[in-house]
């Protein structure tokens, strides 16, 4: 009898102990990322991987972009805009410290913005700062930015990872040891293996839930699945769409399909005959079967697009009906262009699977209308060199992942070789328009011109497929900008 009591008591105690440990939620997280960042300074490199580690976690800007592409206050708690739309006065949070203990003030804002737009700046998105005329420190908590002209997207621009505020003390060493104002501070980086962040003790904003986050580099999609299954890694915010089938029926995991800002397109060299003929480009658009391409290149995930705008963007207009899949119509247009016997061209494909797999399908679709493509696989470095810089190509497939980047079609010497004064005018107007209704109108106009001109073959919006532990909450569903914002991430008990 006594023995039974002892056993019972022990069992109750064990259960109670197990109960409490189950209620104390986990505070650590291991996230898998496919590419290692070359360094960790978002103001000095274009790699998305830099932002996927640091954005909103380590570094903060005046404003920030939220999970649904909205502009939110960040280090600036509020702002006012002058009536002519040229002067922005930002009221900054006080009591903010950098991770190295340095105080944050208006001087750091001036330093960071002046550095980014300087003559010798190596900021990868220098165009974000092009409209800034001067940055003035009014007092330690107020900064005044004067623009050369009113700019509709200015607050949005200041929310990019490239516009984060850095300290003059640590700006030069951020590549190896990033120092920001965010809720997580850099802890260690085992090159080729993982990057670890820990909770910052002196964070000014809402406290975060996680104590320690490790970004582990898993380059191989085949390795991601066992890493999840074994529990070694608990989240892959950017998962390979083709591997989803292996985990989607497992109740331990959540599969979340969202949108990115990556317009995946069949780029066309608009100056290269016969692609300089509108009928030829339109024929290509008619020949493309977007559904088949999405099914084959992206496991059926991803929304079709009819122009250069993400369907989740507030300025989006649906133009996917402009060129329905119509082989007869495509052949007819080719005949009008004097190419009824078809022609040969090349299709250069960079490494991502959307390009390599999509390329095969597109080549077969274009063959049906008489266009014979020679597929040339290229590496990224080669692609940037031959296609992007030297414009030595006929067709290529690529995803343009910068948010809201329809203006690239107005850039001089851009690799599309497209030059339409009407379109350029719309983009120039957009830059100086701040009225929302008018902006919406102009964006719609811009999208329509691109569709009418069939500048490129618009395919689909690259999906963001995230897979993570079902008990994990707060990770972003969409990717309006490259980021893994961990400020709201927590484990449910």
């Amino acid at each position, binding site marked *: 009898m006594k023995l039974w009591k002892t056993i019972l008591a022990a069992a109750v105690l064990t259960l109670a102990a197990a109960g409490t440990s189950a209620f104390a939620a986990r505070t650590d997280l291991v996230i898998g990322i496919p590419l*290692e960042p*070359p*360094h960790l300074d978002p103001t000095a*490199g*274009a*790699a998305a991987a830099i932002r996927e580690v640091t954005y909103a976690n380590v570094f903060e800007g005046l404003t920030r972009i939220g999970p649904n592409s909205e502009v939110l206050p960040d280090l600036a708690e509020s702002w006012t805009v002058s009536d002519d739309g040229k002067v922005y006065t930002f009221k900054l949070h006080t009591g903010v410290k950098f991770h190295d203990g340095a105080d944050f003030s208006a001087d750091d804002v001036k330093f960071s913005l002046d550095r980014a737009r300087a003559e*010798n*700046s*190596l900021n*990868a*998105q*220098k*165009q974000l700062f092009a409209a800034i005329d001067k940055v003035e420190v009014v007092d330690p908590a107020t900064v005044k930015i004067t623009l050369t002209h009113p700019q509709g997207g200015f607050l949005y621009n200041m929310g990019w990872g490239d516009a984060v505020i850095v300290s003059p003390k640590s700006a030069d060493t951020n*590549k*190896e040891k990033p120092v920001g104002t965010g809720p997580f501070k850099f802890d260690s980086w*085992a*090159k*080729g*293996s*993982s990057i670890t962040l820990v909770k910052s003790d002196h964070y000014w904003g809402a406290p975060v839930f996680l104590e320690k986050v490790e970004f*582990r*580099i*898993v*380059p*191989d999609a*085949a*390795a991601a699945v*066992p*890493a999840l*299954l*074994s529990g*070694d890694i608990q989240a892959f915010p950017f998962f390979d769409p083709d591997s989803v089938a292996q985990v989607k029926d497992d109740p331990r995991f959540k599969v979340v399909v969202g949108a990115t800002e990556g317009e995946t397109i069949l780029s066309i060299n608009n100056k290269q005959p016969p692609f300089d003929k509108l009928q030829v480009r339109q024929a290509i658009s008619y020949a493309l079967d977007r559904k088949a391409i999405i099914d084959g290149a992206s496991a059926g995930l991803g929304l079709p697009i009819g122009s250069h705008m993400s369907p989740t963007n507030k300025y989006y207009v649906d133009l996917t009906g402009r060129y329905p899949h119509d082989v007869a119509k495509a052949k007819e247009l080719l005949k009008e262009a004097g190419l009824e016997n078809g022609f040969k061209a090349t299709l250069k494909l960079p490494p991502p699977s959307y390009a390599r797999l999509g390329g095969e399908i597109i080549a077969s679709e274009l063959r049906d209308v008489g266009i014979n493509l020679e597929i040339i696989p290229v*590496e*990224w*470095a*080669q692609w*940037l*060199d*031959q296609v*992007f*810089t030297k414009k030595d190509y006929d067709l290529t497939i690529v995803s343009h992942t*910068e948010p809201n980047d329809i203006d690239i079609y107005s850039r001089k010497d851009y690799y599309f070789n497209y030059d339409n004064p009407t379109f350029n005018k719309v983009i120039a107007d957009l830059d100086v328009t701040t009225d929302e209704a008018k902006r919406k109108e102009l964006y719609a106009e811009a999208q329509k011109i691109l569709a009418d001109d069939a500048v490129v073959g618009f395919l689909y919006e690259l999906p963001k497929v995230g897979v993570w532990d079902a008990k994990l909450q707060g990770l972003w569903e969409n990717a309006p900008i490259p980021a893994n914002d961990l400020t709201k991430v927590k484990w449910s008990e």
Partner: protein
Amino acid sequence: MIAYLLKRLAIALATLILASIVVFAVLEILPGDPARLMLGMNASADQIELLRDQMGLNAPLIWRYLHWAGGLLSLDFGRSYTYSVPVIDLVRERLAVSLPLALIALALSTVIAIPVGLFSASRRGRAGDTISMGAAQLGVAVPNFWFALMLIYVFAVWLRLVPAGGFPGWSAGIWPALKSLLLPAVALALPQAAILARVTRSALIEVLNEDYIRTARAKGLPYRTVLWRHALRNAMIPVLTILGLQFAFLLAGTIIIENVFYLPGLGRLVFQAITQRDLIVVESVVMLLVAAVIAVNLLVDFSYAAVDPRLRSRS
């Protein structure tokens, strides 16, 4: 003997110099601009030029070659374009993974292969030989990444004995670090062992047909003694050659296994550096590997001399 070694050394040096020229030239021809890769599609041409200047990419070709080769001589391998840290630091970190991995795999493969080869050769044509050589044939044919995935599913996902991948670093303790190298070492070792076992077997069989083996048997030596003392020793030359080649492969040719287990090894460093056009890293690491291969080959050459007295007396 001395002349033999000196000749080997001279050949090794000439190979190094030739390799440095070829490596440098090939990478220069490779299309792609590291500066454009770093700054991306939105950077202006001026910014690209500025970065190229900073990286020293605008200097004349010959000057850059001499600068680099001169640096190598004084063991200065330059700074990585992308990581902007000294190349030697990167290499040291990676070697801490690749070298132990290669050694464990090599040890495993030798420990498996030599006895299997001996066993097969001595039982030539019998059931034991057929079974073990059949297994070896399978080992050669099965791609090691598939084998690696099977190991992961069994030992990491199902039994949860070892991590599915990654490397915690030696600072996490010897056992955790070793544990994460275990599966990759097995995945690497088995196909190597299969090859080695086959080579050992055929070399032994050839030797066992020699007259002196018959003589040894005829004078009454037990079969076991003949096999170990006379046959195996003479069969070692092709085995050593293969071992040398395998070590070089295990050190840097393991990129697929490194990817499957996401290990931060030397192979992945080179691969990553090539895709990012981090030329200085590629050039320096490739040269280091060339040097390692040459050193291993030298060692193999010296060990020939050790196992084969004729090589010593001939000079």
